C-alpha cells in the first residue's frame, strides 16, 4: 500500500526534470541560481515544505516498500520471514507476471501514440476552426474534468456486450464485439478509454506550443504552396519538439500509474488477465489478496521499469529534440 502512494507522489518529479533542463539551457551559462538568490539559505528554506512532503509521502513509503519486498509476512505483521530475493524470483518465474509486463508495454505504447496523435490533429485544427472555436475547445477539454472512475464506468456501459449502445452500432457494422469474453476487445476498450481521458491534457500543451510557432513562418510556407499537412510536419512539429517530448514522457507515466481507476472500472484486469496492467496487479495483490511481500516487490520492479523507460526516452528521443528554436 505504501508502494502505490510512493509511485503516485513520484510523478511530479518528471516534469521538473524536463523543466529544469529547459531552464538550464535557456539560462545558458549565466547561472540562474546565482543571479537570483544571494542568500544561500533561502532556496533551501523555500524547498523545505516540498521536501517534507516528499519525505513523508515518497521517501519513507518507498523505503518501507523496499524492505517489504524482501520478506514474506502475515498480513497482521505478527509473522515475518526474511526471504532475500524469493519474492522477485517468484514474480519473474510467473507467466502471469510476465504477461502483465507485456500488457503494460503494449497498453502504454498504444495509448501514447493514440493520445498524442489525436491531440496533435485536434490542436492543429484549432487554428482552422473559425466559427465556435470556444465551443470546440470546451468540448475537447471536457473529458479532463471527468473523474477517471466515472470515465471508466461510462465507457464500460457504452460498450457493454449486452446493453451498450455502441455495441449495437458495432454489431450493426458486423463487428463481433464482446469485451467480457474477448481479451483483445477488452484491451482496446481500456486503451481507448485511457487515451480519451488524456487527450485533452496533451491538447492543452500542444495548442500552447503551437501558439508560439511564428505565424509568419507558416504563412510564408503557405504562400510557397505547402498544404496544412506539410506545414505541420515540416514547420510546426520541429518547433514544438520539446513539448512533444515532454508529453511523450508524461503519457508513459500516465499509462503506467494513473490508468488504475479506468482499468478498475472498465475490466478489473480481465478477462483472463488481458488488461492486467502492472499497477493494477500491485493493487490486487497488495490490497485485495494482502500478499504484501509480492506486492512490494512488484512496486519496486515497476519503479525500476518506469525509471529505465524514462531514461531510455531521454537518451534516444531527446537527442532529436532541439531546444534552441
Amino acid at each position, binding site marked *: *500500500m505504501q508502494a502505490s502512494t510512493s509511485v503516485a507522489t513520484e510523478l511530479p518529479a518528471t516534469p521538473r526534470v524536463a523543466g529544469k533542463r529547459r531552464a538550464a539551457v535557456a539560462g545558458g551559462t549565466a547561472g540562474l541560481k546565482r543571479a537570483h538568490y544571494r542568500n544561500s539559505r533561502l532556496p533551501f528554506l523555500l524547498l523545505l515544505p516540498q521536501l517534507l512532503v516528499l519525505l513523508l509521502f515518497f521517501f519513507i513509503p518507498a523505503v518501507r516498500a523496499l524492505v517489504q519486498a524482501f520478506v*514474506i*509476512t*502475515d*498480513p*497482521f*505483521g*505478527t*509473522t515475518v*520471514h526474511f526471504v532475500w530475493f524469493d519474492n522477485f524470483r*517468484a514474480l519473474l518465474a*510467473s507467466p*502471469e507476471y510476465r504477461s502483465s509486463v507485456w500488457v503494460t508495454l503494449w497498453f502504454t505504447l498504444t495509448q501514447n501514440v493514440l493520445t498524442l496523435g489525436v491531440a496533435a490533429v485536434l490542436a492543429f485544427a484549432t487554428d482552422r476552426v473559425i466559427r465556435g472555436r470556444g465551443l470546440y475547445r470546451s468540448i475537447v477539454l471536457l473529458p479532463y474534468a471527468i473523474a477517471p472512475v466515472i470515465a471508466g*464506468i461510462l465507457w*464500460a*456501459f457504452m460498450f*457493454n*456486450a*449486452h*446493453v*451498450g449502445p455502441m455495441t449495437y452500432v458495432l454489431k450493426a457494422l458486423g463487428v463481433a464485439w464482446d*469485451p*467480457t*469474453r*474477448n*481479451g483483445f476487445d477488452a484491451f482496446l476498450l481500456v486503451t481507448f478509454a485511457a487515451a480519451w481521458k488524456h487527450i485533452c491534457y496533451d491538447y492543452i500543451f500542444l495548442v500552447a506550443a503551437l501558439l508560439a510557432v511564428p505565424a509568419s513562418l507558416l504563412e510564408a510556407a503557405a504562400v510557397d504552396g505547402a498544404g496544412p499537412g506539410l506545414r505541420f510536419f515540416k514547420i510546426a512539429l520541429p518547433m514544438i519538439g520539446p513539448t512533444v517530448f515532454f508529453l511523450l514522457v508524461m503519457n508513459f507515466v500516465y499509462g503506467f500509474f494513473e490508468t488504475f481507476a479506468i482499468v478498475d*472500472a*472498465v*475490466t*478489473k484486469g*480481465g*478477462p*483472463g*488477465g*488481458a488488461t492486467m496492467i502492472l499497477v493494477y496487479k500491485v493493487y*490486487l*495483490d497488495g*490490497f*485485495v*489478496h*494482502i*500478499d504484501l511481500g509480492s506486492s512490494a516487490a512488484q512496486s519496486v520492479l515497476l519503479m525500476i521499469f518506469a525509471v529505465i523507460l524514462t531514461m531510455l526516452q531521454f537518451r534516444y528521443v531527446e537527442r532529436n529534440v532541439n531546444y534552441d528554436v
Partner: protein
Amino acid sequence: MDKTKRAFVGGLLAAAMTAGIAAPSCAQQRTEIQFWHAMGGVLGERVDEVVKRYNDSQTRFTVVATNKGNYDEVINGTIAAYRAKKAPHVVQIYERGFMTMLLSDAIVPVQDLLTEKKKQIDWSDFIKPVASYYLYKGKLMSMPFNSSAPILWYNKEHFEKAGFKEPGPTWQELDKQLYAIKSKGIAECGSSLAGDFFWSLIENYSTVNDQPFGTKANGYDGLDTVFVYNKTKVVEQTKRLKKWIDDGIMQIAGQGLSPEQLYTSGKCSTFFASTAAHSSVERNATIKWSATYLPWEEGTTPRNSSIGGATLWVMKGQKAEDYDGVADFLAFVASPDLQLWWSKVTGYVPITNKAYEAAKKEGYYTANPTREIAILQLNRGTPTANSQGFHFGNYTQSTFALRQELEAVWANKKTPQEGLDDAVRRGNDILRQFEKLHAGKY
C-alpha cells in the same frame, strides 16, 4: 479549494463538539464496543437495527457499528488498524478470510471467550455446514453471523411455456431444458453467470457432488494441502459451462451491468446465486420467479452445499473489561430470536436449528417456500470431508487465480483442462507460500 478546506475545518469542529458532548455520558457507565462490518445499503440498515436492539436491551455497553466498505476493504482496514493498534473489538470477515484470521495471532477464539464469560450458548445447535466451516480443533473460532448458500433461481413462466413443471434436479436434465427453452425462442438465454460463480458453480458443485477440492480434507487436516479440482468432476462442469457460454445458453453480464438484472428482467431463465438475493429479487423482479436446489450430477446422491457469508471475529489487545461487552453482544447475535428476525429481513439462513424451528413453527416457510431451500440444502445428509468447508490459506488469492483462468477458458485462450491445471498450479504456489509462512502453527 478554500471551500473544501472550510468544510473540513467545520467538520472537525463538529466532530470535536459531538465528541465533547458524548464523552461525559459514556464515562458514566456505558463501555463502547467498536464493531466494523461490510454490509452496505439495505443490509447495512439491518445491521444498524441489530445494534440498536442490542443497545436498547441493556445499559452497560454501547456497540458502535461502522460500515468500512466491502469485505475486502473491511479485512484490509482491520489489518491496517491492528498494525496501528487501533483495531475494533469485533469485525465481520468473509468466509474466505478464515485461515488468515485464524493464524494471525491477532484474534481471540469466540467459543473460548464466551465460555470464559459464562455465556449460555448451545454450541451443538448451529446448522452443521455453518459451524463446520469455522471450526478449528472442535471449537468455533468466530461467531457465525450472516450465512448463505447458493440456490438455483428460475423463471417459472419460461419453464412452463417450454412444457416443464420446474428445473430438473440433475445437471443433465437442466441442460436439456435450457437448450429447449432457447431453441423454442422463449428466452434469449438460459442462465446468467453470477460474479461469484466460482463459489456457486465450482466450489458448491464439489461439495454437493462430494468431490474433493483439495487434499487433506480440503485443508482441514494440514497446511500441506494441495488443490486437486483439476482431476475431479469439476472438469466436466467446466466443459459444460464453456459449452453453455459458447452456445449462448449462459451469458456473462460484464462490467456496468449486474448479472442479476439479466435474470430479474426476464432475459435469462435461471440464475445460480445466493439465497441472500431474496431481498433484491423480491424488490426488483418483474418476472414470476421461483427457486430450487442446486442441481447435481446424474447418478450421485447429493450432499450438503457449502456456505458463504461472514462471521464476527474478536480482536486481541483490547481492554480486559471490554471483552465482557463483546461476549455479551455476540451471545445476543447468536440468540434464536435475533437470528429468526435477521434471516427473515435479509434472506440469510438462520444459523441455529432453534431459530430454524421457530420460523417453521410460525409457518414462515409455508408462506415463503423458497426461503427454506438453502437451509434444507445445507442440512442435507451428514457433511463429508469434501463438503464440510474449505480451509485453504490465502484463499481469496487462489480463488482469484481460478476465476482468471476460467475467464481465459471462456475466451478460448485455454481448454477447460488447461485452465484448471493452471489454476491448480497457481493455487498450489499460494498454498506453499502460506505453509512456509505459518509452518508448525496449524
